[in-house]
């Protein structure tokens, strides 16, 4: 059933490929959500996104959920004294008036237990949970394994 739902989600979202969807909740704008294709479903996938807090109250991203993975988590890649590791991030601050990026080499969503391999051109939904703003779902574009940033005309990288 889970597989069927995921397949349905993928098919339904197929025409909106490279949608570069922007969603808002309260003062938060969520855009440029992307992921990289995976080789099979045995290795974790990754999730990147950009969040802008136009309000005057600090918020924080405290979790993600998706039908694409059994165990999605927030991670932060940390390079300290020349050693890279990626500990679990309990929450990612989204301060008032600021723009926060989950991007390669920093914060990322780690999609463990993939339901199916992520293929370039697919998209899948991810629900973000914010401490104050609540939950919002965005469609994530799956880009090439070699992609290094979102493939959107307005991506301010």
């Amino acid at each position, binding site marked *: 059933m889970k597989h069927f739902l995921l397949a349905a989600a993928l098919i339904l979202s197929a025409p909106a490929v490279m949608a570069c969807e922007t969603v808002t909740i309260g003062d938060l704008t969520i855009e440029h959500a992307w992921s*990289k*294709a*995976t*080789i*099979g479903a*045995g*290795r*974790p*996938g*990754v999730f990147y996104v950009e969040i802008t807090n136009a309000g005057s109250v600090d918020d924080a991203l405290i979790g993600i959920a998706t039908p694409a993975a059994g*165990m999605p*988590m927030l*991670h932060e*890649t940390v*390079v300290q004294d*020349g*050693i*890279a*590791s*990626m*500990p*679990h991030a309990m929450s990612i601050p989204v301060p008032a008036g600021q723009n926060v990026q989950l991007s*390669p*080499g920093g914060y*990322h969503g*780690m*999609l*463990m*237990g993939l339901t199916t391999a992520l293929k370039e051109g697919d998209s899948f939904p991810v629900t973000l949970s914010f401490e104050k703003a609540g939950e919002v779902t965005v469609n994530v574009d799956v880009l090439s*394994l*070699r*992609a*290094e940033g979102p493939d959107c005309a307005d991506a301010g990288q």
Partner: protein
Amino acid sequence: MRLRRLQLGLWVAAIAAMIIFAGTKWATQGEGVAETSPAFTPVFTLADEEGRIRTSAEFRGKFLLVFFGFTNCPDVCPTTLSDVAQVMDDLGADAEKVQPLFVSIDPERDRRLGLAAYTAAFHPAILGLAGTEAETQAAANSFKIFYGRENDAAAPDGYSMAHSPGLFLIGPDGEWLRQFTYGTPAADILSDLQSRF
């Protein structure tokens, strides 16, 4: 009023100190081990994707771009491998002078998940190597780099790997030339290589 000025002064001093600290930290990271350490010749003996034993000696005559990583690493590792793939594409006819190597620091799991499919997905020129634990440790020691297993109940199989994310350049005579720190743009790696041909 005077207090405010004092406070302001302290803030300015603190921020200046932070910038200087960040600057020196960045500078030392930017230089890497390369420019300061005396010449050395890293060696390795590791099995390739087909299980054949490959040694550092057989690659003499080529530049080696060596990256230590693990395939369960969706954030840092693909970035470096993508840069390496880009460099190989952009080298054109000179690509035959360069052999990119991906050395697994998680060899048992990577062999099980399939190393060849992983490296090929980035670029067919990248050769994946996955030795035994002892061979991998010996290779890392020889390159003077660190890797370690971190137990993490929330990670796949209950662990994750910490590792040096640099990309290492070895010359045709086997001598260590330099490291490209994590995040070095592909164009910079390309022009460095081209300056050496």
